């Protein structure tokens, strides 16, 4: 691997990784509050993008450049759709299986696991109604220029833009939650829901807000990652598993580590892809292998609440 290829792999890996970080942030946020793994989260990321595309462009998107108004509408709609989808999945498929009074009896793990999975399946199947092709090249609001590195190796400018946007948003959310009153409420609910409820915190509203925020972040991640390669309505599951793997690398709970885990996973995937001995096939297996290897050892993080 030449130095130029390594640089390219690093930059594109960091960009992809930053979007994984946004998804991982949502997983960690929700898990910290409720003990739940949001199994439909990847489908929400992809679903939000396709819903926004459906409204702004229609059912036959092409990878053309967008006007400013359309680009703004696309972004706003993806964020809103992500937030609404996420909150709806929580209300319909997860909440019925959590104990009414948190900290009381244990939650019905089998119930919310299956609930999240079938909710994700429903999102995928619904998307397949208007979007019947296997994959679509989606329009990209970001720039398409490249920077030459010599030897025919180029760096896409959009990788830097993706990295900047994802990091600014990710770190911004993390900082905001660490400092603001809303963040303090979330920490209170995650640390002792019963005590928080006794102090008059509406834990239910806090959890809804967290799911909404996680969904909006997923929508943004979906938008950033979608134009990089053709995206299909059923690609959400694997994207979600990549996000969970990143969150697990970040110990599933710490928001800062979730972003770091995303970056690490993105760079690892990118280097494996660039390494001729292994290639893209192994890069596709990497997050799954990491997931299977790490998940059973994170029993303390994955509290069966």
């Amino acid at each position, binding site marked *: 691997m030449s130095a130029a290829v390594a640089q390219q792999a690093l930059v594109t890996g960091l960009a992809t990784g930053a979007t994984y970080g946004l998804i991982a942030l949502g997983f960690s946020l929700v898990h910290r509050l409720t*003990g*739940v*793994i949001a*199994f439909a989260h990847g489908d929400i990321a992809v679903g939000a993008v396709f819903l926004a595309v459906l409204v702004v462009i229609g059912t036959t998107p092409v990878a053309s450049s967008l006007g400013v108004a359309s680009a703004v509408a696309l972004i706003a709609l993806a964020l809103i759709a992500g937030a609404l989808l996420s909150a709806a999945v929580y209300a*319909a*498929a997860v909440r*019925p*299986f959590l104990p009414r009074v948190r900290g009381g009896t244990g939650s*019905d*793990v*089998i*119930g919310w*696991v*299956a*609930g999240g*999975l*079938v*909710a994700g*399946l*429903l999102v*995928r*199947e*619904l998307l*397949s*109604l208007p979007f*019947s092709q296997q994959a679509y090249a989606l329009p990209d609001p970001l720039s398409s220029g490249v920077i030459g590195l010599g030897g025919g190796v180029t760096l896409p400018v959009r990788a830097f833009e993706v990295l900047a946007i994802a990091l600014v948003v990710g770190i911004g959310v993390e900082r905001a939650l660490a400092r603001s009153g809303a963040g303090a409420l979330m920490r209170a609910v995650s640390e002792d829901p019963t005590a928080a409820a006794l102090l008059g915190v509406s834990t239910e509203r806090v959890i809804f807000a967290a799911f909404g925020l996680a969904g909006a972040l997923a929508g943004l991640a979906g938008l950033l990652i979608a134009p990089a390669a053709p995206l299909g309505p059923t690609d959400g*599951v*694997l994207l979600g*598993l990549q996000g*969970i793997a990143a969150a697990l690398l970040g110990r599933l709970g710490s928001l800062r580590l979730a972003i770091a885990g995303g970056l690490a996973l993105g760079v690892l995937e990118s280097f494996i892809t660039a390494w001729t001995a292994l290639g893209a*096939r192994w890069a*596709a*297996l990497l997050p*799954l*292998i990491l*997931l*299977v290897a790490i*998940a*059973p*050892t*994170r*029993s303390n993080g*994955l*509290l*069966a609440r």
Partner: protein
Amino acid sequence: MSTIELAHDLYLLLAVLGLALAVAHAGLPMLAQSAFMAVGGIGALQLERLGLPIGSAVVVAVAGGAAIGSLTGLLIGRASAAAVALTSWGLAWLAYTALLTFPGLSGGAQGLTRPAVDHLSAVFGLTITLTPTAHLVLAALLCLLALAGSARLRRGPAGLDVAALRDDRELAVSLGVRAVTRRMAVMAICAGVAALAGAGISLLLGVAAPADLSPLLSLQLLAAVIVGGSAPLVGPVLGLVVIVAIPRLADWLTQGGSISDQAAAGVITAAILVACIALRPRVTALRGRAWRHDDAPRAGAARATAGDAGDAASAGAPPENDAASAAAPLAAAAPARPQAGALLLAARGLHCRIGDVEILRGLDLELRAGEIHALIGANGSGKTTALRVLAGELAPSAGALEGERVRRSFQRTHGFASLSPYSQVLAAARAGDPAPGGSLLRFAGMRDAEREAAEDRRVRAALALVGLGERAQDDPQRLGPGEQRLLQVARVAATGARVLALDEPAVGMGPQERERLLAALRELAAQGCAVLVVEHDLRLVAANATVVTVIDEGRVLAHGAPGAVIGDERVREVYLGVAA
């Protein structure tokens, strides 16, 4: 519906029956069933290509599936249910992605093929032609075998252990139930059955393709188990309905209406699955009500052997006399009664950290046969941590711990929610004195009547000890908090351990229950046990303990006879906050 379709659905039901053991009985949200089916289906065809006759290829592939299942069990041995779901979902996708990206494994997207109708030369020169009808009969037979086998397994010792682990893993492990081994066994059976189903389907259709073994199949099978619940007969029938009816219903709806579209069928399938999952809380509630039903066969067996066990509790003796009449020594694992005063456990200079806090700072403790040893101290002084270290749940960072195995109780009251008091104590008795290969022997129909009678005697003695002999078959949810605590003592005592550690056993007890508890503790001490009790009630301690150890900040502050220790001024100052 054609014969092929029916045979196919029956093979899927077989996979559901295997999965039900893991999901409904062991409480594991297992999502890797499609991967295990791939091991059987694709594995058998690959082995045939390597030159094995198809019959042997299936056997080897099923054995491979069981082996991979038990490795999965080892991997998730100590994981929480959420982690099990995540790991197994990851496994399903890992297997699927690997099959798709490495065509050498799976024969590419179109999969591996072989002639669907094939001749099998079986033993004794018989030749079986694998027609769809032969498959149908075979699949039905396998389903019946799986039903009978899992019913038998559930009723045996392994089934009781698995139910206890499902209800409260921490409690079961503390009583000595081997959690990882049991999980490996459950997963080996679950995966082996899935591999068999997978092999059956690929032989029936003459093709094994990755697309038919996607993780969505796992989800469909899980939904079937969830709808069926753990109901012995209705469950599988409902599961079959889910497998058979949903795709056909979706097809029928989309053909009947104006939208004739595969995508629409997909949406309807997903929507019905959502509805199935939404019904789950109700299914669980039904199971909760039906707990006695699950328990009945065991209860019957127990009564049958109770006649010659000389059971005093069922004769309606008043509770006060129960303890005295529990003549059978509980420490059955160690028949030789130790000399009173013999040293059973010695801890010297124990240190233990939790996080950054050093909780134990050089704790010394000696436990002797025949003593009721009270461990007292202010909140946060390290009493519960000391119990956890003694019981081997926490490793001390320094110090020596020598002596016998300690079994301990928890501060929380509730036990195994779906098991009768009798079964709860039986699980503890078996964990304390496991029969080597007992589960297998029982499964094979070989019963050791002598051992079962001995187990029954120990369980009845333990229940009588705490005056719960009358409540042996009651719904555990109907026991009061004090009775739950008495049941805790019975469970710990039934393990046969000679060093028992009880964490605040008298909390929430009325005066009568307290008397029963004290009688039980005295009886255990008289039988040669060392009973360590963490207790806050100093009057109780003063009147009943033979030795008192006071700890403060992880060290022994005072030690000796109750009168002397409780009168000690340092103790009064630290423990009661009374200025000297």
